[in-house]
């Protein structure tokens, strides 16, 4: 597991040096949230929309961060060395997923805060626990699925457009689950806390399934590259 940590550290080191997520993806995500609100010109932008927008923006940002995470590997064929040294591809998978998780987590925290300010939501008591759990479980799911699909398209020509095409449908359930659970945490009328926790359970299952699938599938994926 030491290898996974090395890989994660390296990815975060690169992020720290380039400040890509910090300086660009975060503003991009905020912009996506605002753009939607504008394009749909929703008069009474209800809480459900607030929650949905947070996760939509996160979803699109995930595409950017994943692309970046694999671009640095394939730009100069560094992944070949990495896989050779790692012995088990699954370690690389978890390392990259961990780095992705850290970056997405920071992003989601900012977005949730922004949504709370923009839509005047206050969250307290047991709702905070729900909110934190949702954010962690949904973000883990995004990180695991994102890494898996990032590896699928890595090194493919025109992968920028292939990644969203492949990953978005798979992530759609995550999007829905996370939105509903966040709505519950935001105190929306249309969904109660129990329901929110049910969604969190689903997110957890999703994450576990993709974690297992990823660590198993990563190895054959890395065999490709003809």
């Amino acid at each position: 597991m030491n290898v996974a940590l090395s890989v994660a550290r390296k990815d975060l080191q690169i992020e720290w040096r380039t400040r890509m997520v910090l300086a660009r993806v975060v503003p991009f995500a905020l912009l996506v949230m605002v753009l939607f609100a504008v394009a749909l010109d929703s008069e009474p932008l209800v809480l459900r929309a607030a929650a949905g927008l947070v996760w939509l923006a996160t979803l699109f940002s995930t595409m950017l961060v994943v692309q970046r995470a694999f671009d640095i590997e394939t730009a100069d064929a560094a992944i070949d060395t990495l896989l050779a040294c790692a012995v088990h591809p699954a370690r690389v998978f978890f390392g990259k997923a961990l780095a992705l998780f850290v970056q997405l987590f920071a992003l989601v925290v900012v977005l949730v805060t922004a949504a709370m300010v923009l839509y005047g939501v206050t969250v307290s008591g047991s709702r905070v626990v729900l909110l934190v759990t949702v954010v962690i479980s949904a973000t883990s799911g995004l990180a695991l699925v994102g890494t898996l699909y990032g590896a699928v398209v890595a090194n493919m020509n025109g992968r920028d457009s292939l990644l969203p095409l492949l990953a978005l449908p798979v992530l759609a359930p995550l999007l829905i689950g996370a939105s509903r659970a966040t709505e519950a945490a935001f105190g929306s009328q249309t969904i109660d806390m129990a329901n929110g926790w049910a969604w969190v359970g689903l997110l957890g299952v999703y994450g576990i399934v993709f974690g297992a699938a990823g660590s198993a599938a990563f190895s054959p994926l890395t065999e490709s590259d003809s």
Partner: protein
Amino acid sequence: MTNSVASDTTIHLSNAVVALGGFPALAGVTFGVGRGELVALRGANGTGKSTLLRLCAGLVPLTRGVAVVAGVDLLVNRVAVRPHVGLLGHRNGLYGDLTAKQNVQFVAGLVGATASDVSSALERLGIDQRVASTQASLLSAGQRRRTALAALIVRRAQLWLLDEPHAGLDAAARRELDVILRDATASGATVLYTTHEIDQVVGTPRTITLDGGCVASDVAATIGSAP
């Protein structure tokens, strides 16, 4: 996964065919390389040298024939060969956003090499303080190649595969490279490298020449080829 070589043969190819997108880049290659051997691969452009190296590194699938590298049958499981192999391809495999030193350190961390291994590798390749702390993407072509070689040394692989390692290096680095390759073979590693250079500072090692995806000639090392 850990079926290391028992025999003395590091590479054993028999009628190996590699088809890339339908084109047989290797059209039936047969040869063997023993442990600790130094072999130069030659041949005109497009004759399959890079493909051969990538085959041995487990990066392209074997279409037909037999290929056993470091005791691993590539037809069965080509991922298993990777940990034994250090490949320097046409591309350097560096992270452009990390410094030269960070790049070497990262590889060292993966394989459990020490900090002193890193600094001695950097020193060997003449990567001074300034260059070591410059982002790899900003370095000159030769400096990047040197960094990649330093990372390769740190790996201490059992089989070294180098695709035109001399290209882009200056005279001093070429001399050093030849010493490095000799040292590697002396310590038991096997080295296979391609080159287009006509003069060989290294003396003349065993030379396999490819043509049209097949072995055209296989000439043993000239005696007295010590550096």
